[in-house]
């Protein structure tokens, strides 16, 4: 076992604080990076030592500056690096460089990152080991006739996707054979315009799927387990907003089959450390492998609350070459956890990012709630970084209790100075379909009539305050009489001088 004594956390915001808390609890010294864009950021207060990147004068964003990060770690003799999520977390080149320089990268091997990061390779890996996949064209479609053939084989509905696309762009759903050739041509045109690459591939389209993912832990001693599933179907434009664990859609048997498939993927790709296998689950209980995320995820807390394990701690322990002492039989899901992402976005303006300063922030940490925040009073929200400020995770013995506790926690959460997605979360949690568990990735689009929650009599109260305020203003206006005459009555001596000098 190579004991890690110091970790550089090459990330920011709530995850940097999260990692630091666990690391410190393990007696590990934490290093954080200070950037010029937020030199007094909240997460810096949680680091034992701060490495100053504010003087760096190149164009590379600080958290992507591999050269300087590696250099800083060597300069300060830091044993390991935890990349968090995003930034360099899934950069195989960075992971390799760490290894080359004798630094422990807390995550999987560069090879796993690379293979699983490439959708084609990942899918081939899955299919060659009999893991269910969405049937597809397995490559780019050559022409409309080819499209028709493949679609016939897969069976409608199908979805055409741009090979170079991503983030939900460049996708077209085709319901019937009559449309396929026209749609294919349109998809190619759009792909060319948006991504400069007309390549398009096809997949079976699953209507109203649920997004189910499994948390994997794998050590360097051939032990691989899964810690149950998370359901992340509440998404908007492919961005997760609310996640929960476990999922109402899984029973014991389905959980075993899917869990085993997840473990299999990790096994055949020789995956180490923490990772997440994503599946789509259709309305008939069929599941399909989508991809594997080779990092710790934003929504990991719901798994932690329900299984009782500290995932960051296990990441560090596995990186130290320790053996996983948890056996699959030991893993139990107790109760229910729901996470609400709190983003600085204006829900009423189509979730446009909201910039500003947090004037006040108030919440109550209880035994049933956990607030992982990256911001505090005085924090500046700028366009330089992601809009996610914090995560509010609530627990309950049952799903109903978890929902009730989430709503209670959201009501106690008060953030002044910026607009957040709190009203959106309230609307989802109050929605009858969410409460009955009847959700899918098209929930936000199809089932939500209004995207933000309105408190009882909210409009009435707003109207009351508005008219009260208006009356106060009217009174004020009467008091502030603007006297223009005084300004026009200019001493003749002065006026004379002014006129002469113009």
């Amino acid at each position, binding site marked *: 076992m190579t004991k890690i004594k110091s970790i550089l956390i090459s990330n920011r915001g709530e995850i940097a604080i999260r990692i630091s808390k666990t690391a410190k609890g393990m007696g590990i010294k934490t290093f954080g990076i200070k950037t010029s864009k937020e030199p007094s950021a909240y997460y810096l207060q949680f680091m034992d030592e701060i490495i100053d990147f504010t003087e760096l004068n190149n164009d590379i964003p600080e958290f992507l500056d591999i050269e300087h990060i590696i250099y800083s770690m060597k300069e300060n003799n830091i044993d390991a690096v935890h990349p968090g999520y995003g930034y360099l977390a899934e950069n195989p080149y960075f992971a390799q460089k760490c290894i080359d320089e004798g630094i422990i990268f807390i995550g999987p091997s560069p090879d796993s990152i690379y293979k699983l990061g490439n959708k084609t390779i990942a899918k081939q890996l899955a299919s060659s080991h009999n893991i269910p996949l969405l049937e597809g064209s397995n490559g780019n479609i050559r022409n409309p006739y080819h499209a028709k053939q493949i679609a016939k084989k897969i069976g409608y509905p199908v979805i055409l996707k741009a090979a170079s696309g991503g983030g939900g762009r460049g996708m077209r759903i085709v319901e019937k054979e009559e449309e396929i050739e026209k749609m294919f041509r349109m998809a190619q045109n759009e792909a060319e315009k948006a991504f400069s690459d007309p390549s398009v591939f096809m997949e079976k389209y699953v209507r109203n799927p649920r997004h189910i993912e499994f948390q994997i832990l794998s050590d360097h001693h051939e032990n691989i387990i899964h810690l149950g599933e998370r359901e992340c179907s509440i998404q908007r434009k492919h961005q997760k907003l609310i996640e929960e664990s476990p999922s109402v859609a899984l029973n014991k048997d389905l959980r075993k089959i899917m869990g085993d498939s997840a473990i299999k993927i990790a096994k055949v790709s020789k995956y180490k450390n923490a990772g997440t296998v994503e599946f789509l689950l259709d309305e008939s209980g069929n599941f399909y492998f989508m991809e594997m995320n080779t990092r710790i995820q934003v929504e990991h807390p719901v798994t932690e609350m329900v299984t009782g394990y500290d995932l960051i701690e296990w990441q560090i322990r596995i990186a130290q070459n320790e053996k996983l002492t948890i056996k699959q039989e030991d893993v139990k899901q107790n109760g229910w956890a729901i996470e609400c992402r709190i983003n600085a976005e204006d829900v009423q*303006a189509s979730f446009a990012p909201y*910039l500003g300063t947090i004037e006040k922030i108030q919440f109550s940490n209880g035994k049933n709630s956990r607030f992982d925040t990256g911001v505090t009073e005085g924090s500046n929200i700028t*366009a330089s970084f992601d809009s996610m400020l914090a995560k509010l995770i609530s627990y309950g013995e049952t799903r109903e209790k978890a929902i009730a506790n989430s709503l209670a926690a959201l009501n106690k959460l008060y953030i002044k100075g910026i607009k957040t997605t709190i009203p959106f979360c309230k609307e989802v949690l109050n929605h009858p379909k969410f409460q009955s568990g009847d959700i899918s990735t098209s929930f936000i689009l199809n089932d939500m009539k209004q995207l933000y929650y309105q408190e009882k009599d909210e409009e009435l109260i707003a109207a009351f305050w508005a008219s009260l305020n208006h009356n106060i203003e009217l009174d004020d206006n009467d008091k502030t009489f*603007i006297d223009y005459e*005084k300004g*026009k009555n200019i001493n003749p*001596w002065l*006026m004379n001088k*002014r006129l002469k*000098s113009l």
Partner: protein
Amino acid sequence: MDINGKTYKDFKERANRFKHQNGPDKIKKQHDKGKLHARERLALLFDKDTFEELDAFVTSATPDTGFGKIDEAFGDGVVIGYGRIDGRLVYVFSQDFTTMGGSLGAVHAKKIIKVQDLALRVGAPIIGINDSGGARIQEGVASLAGYTSIFHRNVQSSGIIPQISMILGPAAGGAVYSPALTDFVFMAKRTSFMFLTGPNVVKEVLNEDVSFDELGGAEVHAKKSGVANFMYEDEENAILGVKKLLSFFPSNNLENPPYIDTKDKKDKNVDKLRDIVPDDPNKPYDVKKVIELIIDKDTFFEVSEHYAANIVVGFARLEGKSIGIVANQPKVLAGVLDINSSIKGARFVRFCDAFNIPILTLEDVPGFLPGLDQEHNGIIKHGAKLLFAFSEASVPKITVILRKAYGGAFCVMNSKNIGGDYNFAWPTAEIAVMGPEGAVSILYRKELQNADDPKVLRKEFAAKYRNEVANPYIADEKGYIDEVIDPADTRKKLITAFDSLENKHVEPPSRKHGNIPL
């Protein structure tokens, strides 16, 4: 004339067509984008029932280019006219995005030019509400010529009547020059954009992906470029801001600003001023707290709040009379002067000077920001701008030195010899060629080199320097400061001093204009 006769019938029909053209569906279109309609903005801006529209029924010019058809709409995409704002006559043009995208054609430009000419002839302020897709391509060079005529009038009116621009939609390409030439620019978050070259062209030429907001949104111009002086959450608040701003200046450069009876007593207790500057000269404080205590209650209206925050500029009232304030902000960058703050201060001083608004300077500046970045980007000429502006200004100018006033920055911040009428200092003032630490390194170089404990010795020397060389009484006794005052007396002294300068006039040198470093 018979109301039911043909003459009236034609009149009414035409009025109906006009009403129909500006119907609720047009208003809804703007609302869906998060914007107000051109006429709704005017309804909010002007006092009830005072707005008179001009040229409402003009029709668009026929395109020279023969390219594309133009709408048969009245007004050619802009609403012009005049009305009263808080009782004062103001001219306005408000571009109508719902008609031909608010694009500027020859007739549209002519309308704007009409109100610009009228405002100048009458000596009244003019407000421009920009919300336009830009030049009307179909009309070709006629559109460009329209723009340039507008810009020329912006320049001809500059310093004679106040000109305010509101950007409440897109303003791209050449269209941004008009606002840039006016005295103040207002923007609203999320719906305002200003840039010379849009994201599409940036993508084509530089292959960079930028959003409208990143390139020229309200935040960018309020915080980074300084082009926008005011940024509001939404249009309604921006319009209220314009009205507030107007109350501080006169309608033209011959008048004095209007007076508001704030009922705030001259000798109200401001003893708290004694507590604001910390004993430790290296500790920062917020100069806005000083400002708030000195001026009439709640009258401070800050300009360019988010840009170059190391200098604070804005309007306020002293016993009801409008003044402009320029103050170093020790809380940001220790209050140093740098390129951006010099430019921000200079433009504000020159506006006040043009419109007979007295200037109060609150000084606490350790010097200019050192470094390659500042030097290579010309801090020398930009710092000189502020000096030129102060020196040239012939309005009553009063300075109060709150704490540091070192070197070149001392000269620049309205010192006595560049025309300060009254220069006061607080007992906490430190006036010297150089700050204690720097001076001590030079004056006592040998002693420090040979010392056993240079750090302690340095501290001793610095304290000695502060007490004996940098104290304000030396400057007072030599006449460079008129009086060292008790902070608690500041408000009273300033009101009395400004009152005495009411009829100040300085004969400007007879020249076409100076050559301020640009």
